[in-house]
């Protein structure tokens, strides 16, 4: 018994099977987490090794090169970059996407084990650490305070970061930017000298005075007592009364030689939120945890925490990566809902019957929900890709049901009983329904076999659509006939209202069908003009489009965030940086009305703040996070705001480098073109890079162009003369230690209060650390107790440290980073970069490569083209076996070039650039555009088999098949329209996909509805002539 007869005979089972799909789907839906993109596993491993005292060049030769040579052979390694700077060598290994990072880590460890013995003595063993998208902070909060400011760090530590770290899924919580309490002992060098004291003796004395000592037990009478010396300071002021020396019978207390300051650290990272001193709370998630889930839990916890905080502490959100995700997914949900309604309306208008419409529409939720089971079972998320797949599929899932229902209606009109009509009608179209699903599977199943970043992006889409197609076909062959046999009647009674609405619609549709049949009658007798006309359309559009073709990689998204990194000249004092930072903030505040939250951070990061120390930091670096709210709340796009920010920053000539990056993190910011200049000599590569940068900067296609190489860092070196040292009975170590104790201070001891420890630091008072003379006057005591000044031991020289040496794939490199302006396409920017390189007169020994997004784009485009060809072949093969002919599918394939015409016309009209999403759209079109041809040619062949001539058959097929073709095409095109027109947050990403399919399918349908019958007639009449000759 056929599957459709069993379905019709077992309505309960059939219904329950599909209800089960739906129930599992709803269950899955309630459990699936949401994310922006499919999980992208980290593909980067870093190897760090230090070699104290070695310069950048020494590190490069002795450490970096040795490590690079051994690590170069690790399997699946894509890129190997390195940075050699003073003391440290840092290698970054980027693997192909999809590589098992655990295996790669083991490989790296093995290679390092082999090479360890070749590393220079004194170099530390290389450390491996992994860094991926999971390590990016998911939430940055900022806490502002008024009277609680001095104690802010402790309050945040106790009340915020500790409870937050307990929230499941939270990795680390670090607090930075709050003032850190430190007790400073500022010594007066001349007084010290007068009493023969040094910074280190003071530090020793303080350390010795600040002790609690357990001293055993004593038995007195019948009791045992513990003995204890309790001399830790109970208040910082106690320290001032410590006796540090005695001169001529008089005691010298600390008060006589130094002052005490109980305040915050001298140099620390400072953070301001909306102009107010604040602390940043940076939250990272655990590997594999879901961002949205974790942030939701954190926020829940935060509402409890906020109640326990002092009333003047305000917590604001600086970066919330779940905002974008939630908004994006919501706008996709909206798109899907609209699509569903549009498709329902189209079906209803064509059928004019509620029951029939309901039967067809029912397959949408069932198929969609079934695909969610896959998402849940494989642990995937609802993200842009999987939701786009859902939206994409809605218009296509109804096609099979429409074909089946249409044929059932035909049978019913003939007078068959509903049950028999359902079974036989389904049986008649089953093969063509399966074939058309197979052509779609030819497109989407290959997507599931992709590797690399494309695999991560599109594998889910492939599976989802394939599952949806399979389920919808199954529903069309079982559920639809079952429901038809129950609900459809031969001649349903129609009311007056129904007639008023649907009679005109039917008249129009019949008119169109008749007109179309006449058109085909004309076209099949004027074949040459039709084919020539089609050729002219194709070549004309191609000729108009290709010369000015623009390409991009991923579309430019707008998530309402700007991250700005500003660098003042190396070694700028923190006070100067602070002034510039606050002045820039005021300019932003005045000029950018959209600004909601602006966090400004500068200064040297604490070494225990993992995230901050990973970032570029220092007294000269200002980093700004700006939040301008969702796109729906403002007029200007983030690119326009970024341009304005760049304009404001141009008024600050003291900024050596200004990086304005759109989008907080992840994909979809502005495109980047990197010009990599490989060569050993710093000077020549610098010259070439600057020349390339100059040309690129002048071109409006670039919003910002920076160089990767730092400039030389200025520094003072204390150059001791060994003869002088030995004459004074000193070594460079003792002299150096005294120098550093005076300048940066010695950690004397810890002051304990309420279970917390604060540093007690002894050093020269700030006023004695301001000039070269001050440094030269630092005194050190030799073994004879004689004071010696630094200037007697050597000279203070001004020097500059060479910049970090960057290497890529084992060669020195300098990169010119260009951010493409929002109005320009990546391809235009690349053309400018190429021109810049040509003008730069690159010496022969250098090589120049254009990389960045361009490199990835080229890689992806070429694999997409191969994929497209493969899919085209598969589609042809499926059709050829369905028709059991090579000719008919060849004729149908004529719709493919016109899909291209449609896309080209779309880019031409809208002026947008072709990116990855449009290409995916084109690949999907390969499966969709042939569907109309299949329906048309299949019926034409049927008519010929019934004895009609080719022309007659074409006209009959045209008249009879136009309605179903229009219906399926309209459901697909109109189903894509909400996607193509959506304007919500993140819409930039899926819009190109929708636009491409809408234009490609519309144009291709319009052209091929005329062209395909014509071309078919050309071949068919030739066949007919051959056959009659044989006779």
């Amino acid at each position: 018994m056929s599957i459709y007869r069993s379905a019709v005979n077992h309505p309960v089972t059939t219904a329950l099977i599909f209800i089960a799909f739906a129930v599992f789907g709803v269950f899955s839906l309630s459990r699936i987490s949401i994310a922006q993109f499919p999980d992208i596993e980290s593909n980067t491993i870093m190897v760090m090794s230090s070699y104290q005292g070695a310069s950048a060049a020494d590190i490069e030769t002795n450490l970096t090169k040795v490590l690079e040579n051994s690590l170069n052979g690790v399997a699946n390694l894509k890129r190997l970059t390195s940075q050699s700077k003073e003391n440290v060598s840092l290698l970054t290994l980027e693997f192909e996407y999809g590589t098992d990072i655990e295996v790669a880590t083991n490989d790296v460890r093995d290679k390092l084990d082999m090479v360890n013995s070749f590393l220079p003595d004194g170099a530390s063993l290389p450390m491996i650490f992994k860094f991926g998208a999971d390590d990016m902070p998911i939430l940055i909060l900022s806490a502002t305070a008024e009277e609680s400011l001095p104690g802010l760090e402790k309050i945040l530590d106790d009340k915020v970061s500790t409870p937050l770290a307990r929230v499941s899924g939270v990795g680390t919580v670090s607090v930075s930017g709050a003032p850190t309490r430190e007790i400073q002992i500022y010594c007066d060098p001349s007084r010290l000298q007068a009493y023969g004291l040094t910074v280190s003796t003071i530090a020793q004395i303080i350390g010795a005075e600040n002790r609690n000592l357990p001293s055993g037990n004593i038995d007195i009478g019948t009791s045992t007592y513990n003995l204890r010396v309790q001399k830790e300071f109970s208040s910082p002021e106690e320290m001032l009364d410590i006796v540090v020396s005695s001169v001529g019978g008089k005691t010298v207390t600390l008060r006589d030689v130094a002052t005490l300051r109980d305040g915050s650290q001298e140099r620390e990272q400072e953070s301001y939120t909306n102009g107010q001193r604040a602390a940043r709370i940076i939250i990272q998630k655990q590997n594999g945890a879901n961002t949205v889930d974790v942030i939701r839990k954190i926020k829940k916890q935060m509402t409890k925490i906020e109640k326990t905080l002092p009333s003047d502490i305000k917590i604001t959100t600086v970066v919330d990566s779940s905002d974008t995700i939630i908004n994006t997914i919501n706008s996709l949900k909206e798109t899907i809902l609209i699509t569903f309604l549009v498709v329902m309306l189209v079906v209803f208008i064509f059928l004019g019957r509620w029951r029939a419409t309901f039967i067809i529409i029912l397959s949408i939720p069932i198929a969609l929900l079934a695909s969610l089971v896959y998402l849940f079972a494989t642990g995937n998320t609802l993200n842009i890709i999987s939701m786009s797949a859902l939206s994409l599929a809605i218009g296509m899932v109804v096609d099979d049901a429409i074909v089946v229902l249409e044929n059932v209606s035909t049978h019913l009109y003939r007078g068959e009983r509903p049950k028999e009509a359902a079974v036989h009608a389904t049986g008649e179209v089953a093969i063509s329904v399966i074939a058309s699903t197979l052509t779609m599977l030819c497109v989407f199943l290959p997507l599931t076999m992709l590797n690399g970043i494309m695999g991560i992006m599109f594998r889910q889409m492939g599976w989802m659509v394939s599952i949806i197609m399979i389920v919808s076909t199954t529903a069309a062959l079982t559920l639809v006939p079952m429901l038809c046999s129950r609900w459809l009647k031969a001649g349903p009674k129609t009311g007056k209202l129904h007639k008023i609405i649907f009679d005109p619609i039917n008249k129009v549709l019949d008119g169109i069908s008749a007109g179309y049949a006449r058109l085909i009658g004309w076209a099949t007798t004027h074949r040459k003009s039709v084919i020539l006309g089609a050729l002219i359309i194709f070549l004309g559009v191609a000729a108009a489009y290709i010369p000015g073709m623009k390409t991009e990689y991923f579309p430019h998204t707008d998530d309402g965030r700007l991250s700005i990194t500003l660098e003042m000249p190396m070694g700028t004092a923190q006070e100067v940086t602070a002034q510039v930072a606050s002045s820039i903030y005021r300019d932003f505040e005045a000029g950018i009305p959209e600004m909601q939250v602006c966090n400004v951070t500068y200064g040297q990061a604490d070494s225990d703040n993992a995230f901050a120390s990973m970032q570029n930091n220092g007294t000269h670096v200002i980093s700004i996070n700006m939040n301008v709210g969702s796109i729906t709340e403002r007029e200007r796009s983030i690119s326009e705001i970024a341009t304005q920010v760049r304009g404001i920053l141009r008024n600050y000539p003291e900024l050596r480098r200004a990086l304005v990056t759109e989008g907080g993190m992840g994909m979809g910011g502005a495109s980047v073109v990197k010009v990599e200049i490989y060569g050993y000599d710093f000077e020549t590569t610098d010259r070439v890079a600057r020349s390339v940068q100059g040309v690129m900067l002048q071109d409006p296609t670039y919003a910002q162009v920076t160089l990767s190489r730092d400039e030389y860092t200025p520094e003072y070196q204390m150059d001791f003369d060994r003869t002088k040292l030995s004459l004074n009975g000193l070594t460079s170590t003792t002299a150096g230690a005294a120098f550093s104790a005076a300048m940066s201070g010695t950690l004397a001891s810890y002051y304990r209060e309420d279970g917390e420890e604060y540093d007690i630091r002894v050093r020269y008072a700030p006023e004695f650390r301001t000039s070269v003379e001050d440094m030269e006057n630092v005194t050190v005591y030799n073994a004879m107790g004689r004071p010696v000044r630094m200037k007697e031991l050597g000279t203070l020289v001004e020097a500059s440290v060479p910049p970090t040496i960057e290497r890529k794939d084992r060669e020195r490199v300098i990169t010119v980073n260009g951010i493409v302006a929002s109005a320009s396409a990546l391809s235009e920017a690349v053309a400018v970069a190429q021109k810049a390189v040509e003008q730069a007169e690159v010496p022969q020994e250098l090589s120049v490569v254009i990389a960045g997004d361009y490199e990835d784009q080229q890689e992806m485009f070429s694999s997409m083209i191969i994929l497209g060809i493969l899919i085209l072949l598969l589609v042809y093969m499926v059709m050829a076996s369905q028709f059991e002919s090579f000719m008919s599918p060849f004729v149908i394939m004529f719709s493919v070039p016109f899909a291209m015409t449609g896309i080209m016309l779309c880019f031409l009209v809208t002026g947008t650039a072709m990116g990855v999403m449009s290409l995916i759209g084109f690949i999907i079109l390969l499966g969709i555009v042939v569907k109309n041809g299949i329906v048309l040619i299949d019926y034409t062949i049927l008519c010929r088999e019934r004895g009609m001539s080719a022309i007659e058959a074409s006209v009959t097929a045209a008249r009879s098949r136009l309605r179903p073709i229009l219906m399926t095409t309209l459901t697909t095109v109109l189903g894509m329209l909400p996607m193509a027109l959506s304007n919500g947050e993140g819409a930039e990403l899926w819009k190109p996909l929708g636009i491409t399919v809408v234009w490609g399918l519309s144009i291709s349908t319009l052209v091929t509805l005329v062209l395909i019958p014509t071309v078919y007639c050309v071949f068919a009449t030739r066949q007919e002539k051959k056959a009659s000759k044989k006779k």
Partner: protein
Amino acid sequence: MKAVFVSYNQAYNEQIVEIFESHGQRGFTQWKDISGRGTVSGEPHLGSHAWPVMNEAVLAVVPDEVVEPVVAALKGVDEESPELGLRAFVWNVETIL
């Protein structure tokens, strides 16, 4: 006794046997999925790509007096939906084993 041979569109399916049953006739022989074409008009029922519809046939041997009502009932069914196609043929039965 007479033999009634009915060849009809498979869409009638059980309907034909039911007609015999309603006239108190138990015995019949049925063929499913067979092809055929009318002498004068109507679509051929060949089960091919061009003519996908198929026929069924029933052969029943019935007493002489039942033939007329059965044929009348069959005619009624046929006239209800002439597009489907149904033909009946009656001839004499000489021997029954």
